[in-house]
């Protein structure tokens, strides 16, 4: 039995926290892509850093990373498409990088050496749910207490907050592009919350329109698309 494990590398054993929901996230994106898109960006390299600004540790980490560490709440340094650093607290930061950049962990650990501070591989801690489209901010405003208006939350801003009752990192990478980072154990909840919140922005599935007609004729008050009938079952699983 152990042979099975040894014939597969770690990459084959990886399971995205939202793998079972990819199809439904994709369906949202296909329905009205300019209005709302959903998807998962799993397996990113994420590294927790602790270092007090102004110390040798802080300078060493920034130097090894090649990216300045953010100095204040909301600030994101680096490049969202490559290596970015999010502000979590006055002396706490999160590096988010592509999956193939796992070498950053030992590199940063070496740079920190014995200075006071911390470098921890947190790659499995959070997944990234990507939310895009012109309605994305409306969707997030339903469940986030943070002020997401561009005047205080422009592209390139990230904060730790809540979405619904779940703690998440909320990161705006462009005017109409957001990343929601729930912990892996809250990923399914967060994705289901978003699938519910985006429903009003989805277009009725055009390929199923003819199937919906008999229902609508029989009971106009509860006219529903095949799409909404399919989703009607899932809130029970969240309770």
């Amino acid at each position, binding site marked *: 039995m152990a042979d099975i494990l040894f014939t597969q590398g770690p990459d084959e054993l990886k399971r995205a926290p939202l793998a079972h929901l990819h199809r439904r996230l994709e369906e949202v994106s296909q329905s009205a892509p300019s209005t709302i898109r959903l998807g998962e960006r799993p397996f990113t390299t994420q590294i927790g850093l602790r270092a007090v600004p102004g110390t040798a540790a802080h300078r060493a980490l920034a130097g090894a990373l090649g990216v300045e560490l953010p100095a204040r709440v909301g600030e994101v340094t680096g490049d969202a498409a490559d290596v970015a650093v999010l502000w*979590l*607290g006055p002396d*706490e930061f999160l590096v988010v990088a592509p999956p193939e950049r796992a070498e950053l962990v030992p590199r940063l650990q070496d740079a920190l050496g014995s200075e006071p501070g911390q470098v921890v591989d947190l790659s499995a801690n959070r997944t990234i749910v990507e939310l895009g489209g012109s309605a994305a901010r409306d969707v997030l405003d339903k469940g986030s207490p943070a002020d997401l208006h561009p005047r205080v939350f422009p592209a390139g801003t990230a904060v730790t907050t809540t979405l619904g009752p779940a*703690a998440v990192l909320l990161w705006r990478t462009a005017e109409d592009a957001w990343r929601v980072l729930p912990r892996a154990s809250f990923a399914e909840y967060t994705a289901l919350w978003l699938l519910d919140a985006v429903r009003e922005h989805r277009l009725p599935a055009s390929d199923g329109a003819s199937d919906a007609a008999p229902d609508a004729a029989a009971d106009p008050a509860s006219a529903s698309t095949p799409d909404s009938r399919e989703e009607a079952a899932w809130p029970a699983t969240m309770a």
Partner: protein
Amino acid sequence: MMLIPCPHCGPRNETEFAYGGQAHVSYPEDPHALDDAAWARHLFYRENPKGLFAERWVHSAGCRRWFNAVRNTITYEVQSVEPIGPRPPGGRPAESTTSEGGHA
């Protein structure tokens, strides 16, 4: 809904915070000198002023840092905040101190 000004994150929604009770309650300098009544006073007795009150909050769903705030318990206005530290904030009202422990 209150907006609480975290000293690190700025004004954020009350739901992101947790309350930590009265601020600046110092550990007794000589714990062995306290009898049971004095211990009870140190552990359980807290001010309950009508007006300004120095208290602790933690931004648990944000930067996860503790900080001190002076809040008006009548109006809920947060008069001042400062990061956690040994020194009471300047705006701390004298009547919100406890009788034991003193202040560093």
